[in-house]
């Protein structure tokens, strides 16, 4: 069997579910049409069911998936490169995840690997130059392997980790990783003073984790992408530098236990000014969001009140006066207060209410999307 034959066979397997779904849809549609022609209710039920399950199969089919093995092989090479670099440079310190105030891009991330242990954290202006190798203190700044994942967490939760606290992460990260992203079967986060322990069970990265275990400068220092992403989330939420103290993997690779430690940042005078600027920027952004939310809330409230009133009017006219719906909406209201002297009808109020409600909801949704 040559390569093209294999590819054809794989395509055929992949298209099987689609073929079944389309077949269900087609037979359902035929059954429905026949039931209409011959007025057969049983056939209509069958047609409805077939059409629905055909459409459902198409809808819930995953768009794309990759094997975890393939994913691991693409990541491991870059981790090996970083490990080789650190080994050749003979850097001994543990990687320190720097909080957002050290970064120009707030969605970015940097981990500082000092040349020796207990060298301390570099000043903001040193990191802001975006150099890889720093002189004071000596070390290197690299983009952590879990940065993409951490940004994905923020996008999925629709929340900026800089605006949340540790409790939020403790409550929401497990649900995100288990139920939404399905990266792991279970995640427990325990907070004890400055130490945060994460216990990950049944991670899809377990093979990658056992591979990174062989790289001493990665596992327990810079971390695998999953541990690294949690470290970034922690440093963003607390605003403190974070180090990965130790990582323990069970023999079968099912459980990964990682300890993170929050470091107290050394605050030089220059950093205070930058911190104030950042706070000012965050407060302004927050005020803008609140105002926009208030406007959408106001529109939605007005729209809802008008629609509720129209609903009450319909109910009243139908139950008390026995009017039909067309007359209620389109009937003349001349002489009534509703008319406002300009010939307003119930349909006008209904349309105004609906428009206000939709504009309010759209403004709110647009705001949320732009925030993501």
């Amino acid at each position, binding site marked *: 069997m040559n390569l093209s034959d294999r590819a054809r066979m794989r395509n055929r397997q992949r298209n099987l579910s689609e073929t079944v779904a389309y077949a269900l849809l087609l037979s359902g549609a035929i059954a429905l049409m026949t*039931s*209409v*022609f011959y*007025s*057969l*209710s049983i*056939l*209509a*039920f069958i047609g*409805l*069911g077939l059409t*629905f399950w055909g459409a*459902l199969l198409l*809808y*819930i*089919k*995953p*768009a794309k*998936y990759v094997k975890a093995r393939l994913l691991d092989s693409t990541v491991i090479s870059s981790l090996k490169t970083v490990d080789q670099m650190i080994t050749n440079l003979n850097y001994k310190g543990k990687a320190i995840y720097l909080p957002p105030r050290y970064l120009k891009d707030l969605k970015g991330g940097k981990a500082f690997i000092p040349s020796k242990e207990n060298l301390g954290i570099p000043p903001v202006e040193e990191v802001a130059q975006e150099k890889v190798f720093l002189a004071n203190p000596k070390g290197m700044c690299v983009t952590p392997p879990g940065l993409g994942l951490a940004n994905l967490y923020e996008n999925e939760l629709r929340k900026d980790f800089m605006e949340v606290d540790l409790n939020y992460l403790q409550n929401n990260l497990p649900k995100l990783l*288990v*139920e*939404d992203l*399905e990266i*792991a*079967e*279970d995640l427990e986060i325990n907070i004890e003073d400055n130490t945060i322990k994460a216990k990950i069970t*049944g991670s*899809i990265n377990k093979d990658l984790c056992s591979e990174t275990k062989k790289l001493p400068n990665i596992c327990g220092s810079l971390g695998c992408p999953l541990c690294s992403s949690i470290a970034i989330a922690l440093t963003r939420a607390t605003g403190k530098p974070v180090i990965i103290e130790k990582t323990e993997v069970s023999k079968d690779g099912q459980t990964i236990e990682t300890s993170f430690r929050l470091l107290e940042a050394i605050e030089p005078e220059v950093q205070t000014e930058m911190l104030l600027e950042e706070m000012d920027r965050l407060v302004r952004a927050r005020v803008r969001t609140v105002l926009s939310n208030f406007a959408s809330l106001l529109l939605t409230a007005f729209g809802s009140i008008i629609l509720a009133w129209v609903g009450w009017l319909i109910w009243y006219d*139908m*139950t008390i006066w026995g009017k039909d719906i067309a007359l209620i909406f389109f009937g003349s209201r001349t002489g009534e207060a509703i008319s406002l002297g300009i010939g307003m009808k119930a349909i006008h109020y209904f349309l105004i209410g609906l428009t206000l409600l939709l504009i309010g909801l759209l403004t709110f949704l647009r705001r949320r999307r732009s925030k993501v």
Partner: protein
Amino acid sequence: MQFPLSLWDISLWLAATAIILLVTSELISPHYGKTNLLIEKKRLRNVALTISILFLITVVIRIYEIIITS
């Protein structure tokens, strides 16, 4: 030539489908550690909820009719 199902037939169909989908959605939920099933579980849950809401709407219509006729 007319559609042979009444609103109440569709209501019954919606109820049965909603139960099947809601139970399936719950059983395959990643909340119980089932992460190896390759389907869009979120979409399935949304469909299950939509069908349930549609069924509830038919119930509301039914109640409304009972109130009006009494």
